[in-house]
C-alpha cells in the first residue's frame, strides 16, 4: 500500500514553549492510528498542523504525494483531509441538513451552472449521510438544539460529506454519555475500510476499539509506538502517565 500521510521532523513553538519537537509519522491508506499522551504532550497541536489550523515552525507534512506544509486549511480539505474539533463545532444557526449540504459544497462536482439540480443532489447525499448516522429525524432541527453527542455525530457526518481520504478526529469521545459513546463507536466502526483515520484520544476503550497502531507522545516527541496491546503493557508509558499524574 502507498503512503498517504508522511510527517517528518515536525516542530511547533508557542513563544518560548516547544509544543511539538521533531515528530515523525507515516500513515498508509486505510490505517487507523491513535495519538495518546498526557495534557500538553502536543497531540492536538500535531492534529491542527496536519489540518492546517496551526502553522508548523519546522518540518514537513506530505499528503498523497503533495507537500502541504504551507497550504491553507481549505486547500487541504479539497485534497481530502477532513477533521472534527475537540469541542464539536457544527454551524449553530443552520439545520442539520443545511450543515451537511454546506459542508459538501466545496467538494461537489455537480455543475454550478445548474443550481437547482446541484441543490437536489446535495440534499439527497446529505439525507443519506444523516440516515447512516441515525440522525435522519433531526434533519430540520437547528444544530444548536442538538445534544452534545448528536453534535459530535453531526460533525463527523459533516467531515464525511467531503468524501475524505484522511479523517482527523480530535478527542471524539470527550464528554459523551455511555449511550452516545456506543453510537459513536458504531459509527466509527462502519467507516469505509479505505478511509485513513488519525485519532487523538484519552479514552482507552475508544483507542482499543478503533486504532490498530498507537503512538505515545511525551513533551512533543514520540515516546513509543505499537499496537494497543503492546502500549497497554509498556512500563515506560505507565510511568509517564503516572509520573505526570502525581
Amino acid at each position, binding site marked *: 500500500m502507498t503512503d498517504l500521510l508522511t510527517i517528518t521532523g515536525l516542530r511547533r513553538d508557542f513563544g518560548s514553549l516547544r509544543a511539538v519537537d521533531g515528530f515523525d509519522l507515516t500513515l498508509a491508506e486505510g490505517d487507523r492510528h491513535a495519538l495518546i499522551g498526557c495534557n500538553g504532550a502536543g497531540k492536538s497541536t500535531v492534529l*491542527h498542523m496536519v489540518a492546517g*489550523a496551526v*502553522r508548523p515552525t519546522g518540518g514537513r507534512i506530505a499528503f498523497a504525494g503533495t507537500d502541504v506544509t504551507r497550504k491553507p486549511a481549505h486547500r487541504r480539505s479539497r485534497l481530502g483531509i477532513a477533521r472534527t*474539533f475537540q469541542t464539536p*463545532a457544527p454551524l449553530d444557526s443552520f439545520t442539520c441538513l443545511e450543515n451537511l449540504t454546506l459542508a459538501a459544497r466545496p467538494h461537489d462536482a455537480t455543475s454550478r451552472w445548474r443550481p437547482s439540480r446541484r441543490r437536489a443532489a446535495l440534499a439527497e447525499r446529505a439525507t443519506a449521510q444523516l440516515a447512516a448516522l441515525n440522525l435522519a429525524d433531526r434533519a430540520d432541527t437547528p444544530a444548536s438544539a442538538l445534544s452534545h453527542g448528536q453534535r459530535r455525530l453531526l460533525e463527523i457526518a459533516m467531515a464525511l460529506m467531503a468524501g475524505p481520504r484522511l479523517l482527523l478526529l480530535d478527542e471524539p469521545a470527550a464528554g459523551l454519555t455511555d449511550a452516545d459513546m456506543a453510537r459513536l463507536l458504531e459509527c466509527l466502526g462502519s467507516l469505509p475500510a479505505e478511509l485513513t483515520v488519525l485519532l487523538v484520544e484519552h479514552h482507552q476503550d475508544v483507542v482499543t476499539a478503533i486504532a490498530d497502531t498507537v503512538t505515545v507522545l511525551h513533551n512533543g516527541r514520540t515516546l513509543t509506538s505499537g499496537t494497543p496491546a503492546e502500549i497497554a503493557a509498556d512500563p515506560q508509558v505507565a510511568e509517564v502517565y503516572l509520573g505526570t499524574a502525581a
Partner: protein
Amino acid sequence: MDLLDAYLPHVIGGVTYGLLLFTVASGLTLAFGVADVLNLAHGTVFMVGGYAAYLVTDGSWWGLVLAALAGTAAGAVFGGALSGAIMPLAGRGHMMQALLTFGVSMVVGNLLVQVFGSAELRPDLPDVLEQPVVFLGHNYPAYHLLFIGAAGLLAAAGWLVVTRSRVGALVRAMVDDQDMVAALGVNPKLVLAGVLAVAGALAGLAGALGAPILGPSLHAANTVLLQSLVIVVVGGLGSIGGAFVAALLVGQVHTLGVALAPEWSPYLLFAAMAVALLVRRPPQLLVGGRTT
C-alpha cells in the same frame, strides 16, 4: 549644521509631544495587551488629569507636585470605575466594550466641559517655568524642558518595572498568552481592574503634567486617543518598548512632519498604522472557531 539647527526646535518639540503621548499610550497598550480592552475613553482620562491639575496648581512648586499626584489619583479612580463598568460585559465581544467606552467618553467629556467651561484652562505654573529658556541656541518654554526630564525619568522607571520586577514579568507573560492569567490562579476581574486603574493613572498623570503643553479639552482628548491608538498598533499591542519608539516617531511626525510635509503629515500617521497591521501576521486562529 545649519539645517540641523533649523530643525532642532521641531525635533525637541517632537520629543516633548512624543513623551507626552508615550505616557498616555503606555496605559492604552497595557489595557490592550493584558486586559484585551479597546478603551475609547482613554483620552477622556487624560482630560480629567488636566482639569485636576488646573484645580490644584497655585503657582508654587508644591502645587505642581500636587497636580501630578492629583492627576494620577483621578486617572486611577476613573480607570477603576471603567473596569467596573466593563465587567458586566464579559463575553460580549470587543464591540460592546468599544461602544460603551465611547459612550462614557462622550458623557464624561461633555459634562467636564459644562462644569469647567469651554475656555482654555491652563494650570498655574511657578513663574520661572513661564519664562523661555535658551538651549542650544533656541528659546524653549522652560516647562517643556522640565517635562522632557520628568517624562524621561517616568519612562525609565516604567522600563525597569516591566523588565526587572516580578509584576513586570507577570505583565509580559499575560501579554503573550492571556490564558496564563487563569493558569496562574490570578482573579481575572482583579487583573482587569488593576490594569485599567494603572492605565488610567498613567493617562491622568500625562493629563496633569501635559496640561501646560496640551490643555484639557474635548479636542485634546480625541487627538490624544487617536494618536495613542496609532502608537499602540505601530508599537505592537501590549509592548511598552514598542510604544516608546512609536510615540517618539509620532511626536516627530506631529512636528517635523507638519513642517516638512504639512499636506502629508496626517496621512503619515495612519499609513504607518496600516503598514504595521499588514506586515504583522494576524494572530493565529486557534482551535474551535472565533477568537472574539
